[in-house]
């Protein structure tokens, strides 16, 4: 495979065992890590040509991230956690219409967390499944073009996992966001437009592009 390419709005399932380089790939795509060689283009931007600070700004503006677990800052309320991207990116703040707080409330309500969005509600009171949904709300705030989810379901039981996945897909579709979903659990792949193995990407020519 000469290049790994994801189209805009596409929902891609990336599978691979731990230690196979998933985190490194996500780090490169999200601009936290710099690729040593090859070209990394995301949303028309050549990440390799950007400085560290510019890559950080780019990530803040265009990428929403969801981790396996512990996505939330324990000292912030649910609402403040969701609003975090709007603190660091003016673009995300501007795109959260009509205003960041309303958009955060709407996202939380759609994710079935209407009551948890109450100001001052502590994230430590939430179950892991609820915490993961808060993380999705945060990743989607301000309509980033790309959502990267790194094993977001592995800490959930199977019922919660199915609910979570459906919500994630629906919200990404509603926000026109491209979804890059990484998991070792191949059973989840059926819901996605495309399924890839990390091993295939590792054989790719040093070209990594997403447009």
């Amino acid at each position, binding site marked *: 495979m000469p290049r790994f390419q994801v189209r805009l709005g596409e929902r891609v399932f990336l599978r691979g065992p731990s230690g196979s380089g998933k985190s490194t790939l996500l780090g490169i795509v999200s601009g936290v*890590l710099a690729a040593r060689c090859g070209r990394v283009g995301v949303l028309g931007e050549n990440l390799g040509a950007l400085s560290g600070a510019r890559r*950080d*700004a780019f990530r*803040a503006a265009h990428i929403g991230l969801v981790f396996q677990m512990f996505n*939330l800052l324990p*000292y912030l309320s649910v609402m403040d956690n969701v609003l*975090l991207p709007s603190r660091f990116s003016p673009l*995300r703040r501007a795109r959260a219409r009509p205003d960041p707080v309303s958009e955060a409330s709407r996202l939380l309500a759609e994710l079935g967390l209407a009551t948890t969005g109450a100001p001052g509600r502590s994230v430590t009171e939430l179950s892991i499944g609820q915490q993961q949904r808060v993380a999705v709300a945060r990743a989607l705030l301000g309509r980033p073009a790309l959502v990267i989810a790194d094993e977001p379901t592995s800490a959930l039981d199977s019922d919660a996992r199915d609910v979570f996945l459906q919500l994630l897909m629906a919200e990404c579709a509603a926000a026109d966001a491209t979804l890059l979903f990484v998991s070792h659990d191949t059973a989840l792949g059926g819901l996605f437009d495309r399924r890839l193995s990390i091993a295939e990407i590792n054989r790719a020519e040093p070209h990594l592009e997403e447009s």
Partner: protein
Amino acid sequence: MKPLVGLAAQSLWNRRGTAALTVFAIAVSVSLLVGVEAMRSGARESFARTISGTDLIVGARSGPLNLLLYSVFRVGDPTANVSWQSHQLVSRHPDVAWTIPISLGDSHRGYRVMGTTRDYFRHYRYGNRQALGFAAGGPFRDVHDAVIGAEVARALGYSPGDEITITHGIGELSFTEHGDHPFRVAGILVATGTPVDRTVHVGLDAIAEIHEDWRGGAHSLAESSRHPFDGDEPEGGYRDALPEFPTGITAFLVGMRSKDAVLQMQRALNEFSDEPLTAVIPGVALQQLWQIVGVADRALFIVAALVVLAGLVGMLTSILASLRERRREMAILRSVGARPLHVFALLLLEAGLLALAGVLAGIVAAHAALGAATPLLASRYGLFMESAGVGVYDLQLAGAVVGAAFIAGLVPAWLAYRNSLADGLTIRT
């Protein structure tokens, strides 16, 4: 930077247990520094206000500090006496407004006994030219009357009318008591916060009488240097005619009619050919003495400053210890768009906030404590605190400590910056 201040504060609040301990350590150290500084200026102030209104102190030829110490602070012993004739000569000088003769050498239960005249109560000034006042009774009228300082009265529980005995020599355990000359407490002075509080005042004639009796006794030789009563005078002569009091005194205080004449008089006395004398200007001598005493005072300040440093090191330790468990926090912040520089600033702000809280708490606590302690310090130790309010010094101190905290905060900030560059979004636990 503005969103970061809120984040830093919220992050600290989340760790409020350790943060409170850190703030407490800084607050204690800062309040110690504020307290020491207030004591320092209070001590300096009290020191300078020991004597005022006196233009010259005249004693036998010795160093100015020695003269000041025994005549004003009742510390140490005079090397020699001044003849009564010299005192009379000075007191009759047209430029001289008043003189107060003083005679030291006896004690009462550890407190110095000072022989003087009633001019002492008229002319002696302390602090901001305050006169001595009587809390009870009045000046001595009889040979066996004594006027005691406030601390003597308080410590020994005396009231007017009580009988006391004078001990020959200085110190609690003295050679012999002048048991056959009981004195009566005629008056108690208002507290001054000066050595006057620790003095038993009697008339010069009483001192003379005591020692006249002693002259014939076994101790006369030992005493002759300190109280060289000539014995030429008729028995009891000085009691009736004080101005001709024909004996040696320890020193005398001089008040001039015009300040312009002070230097001239000082020179004249220092060059006096009849008797080797030393005349000092109290303010000048106090200044010299403070330069010596001030060394201890500076040492105290350095110790307090080091305690503040220890407080800051404690803060540094607690922040550094938290870094490991906060790598996740940093990774989350980076995933939502925080740059490594933001992480750096966050930790720097954290150090600054901790120090600011500690400094504010420390200054408030110190001033509250000083305000509460001021009356006690003034009455018990004669330490007068000028102002209990927050002053420029406190602001400078606050600035210095917070500044130092920011500098100390560079260490954890740099480490977190490096960690977050290396960790990226991977969370290590």
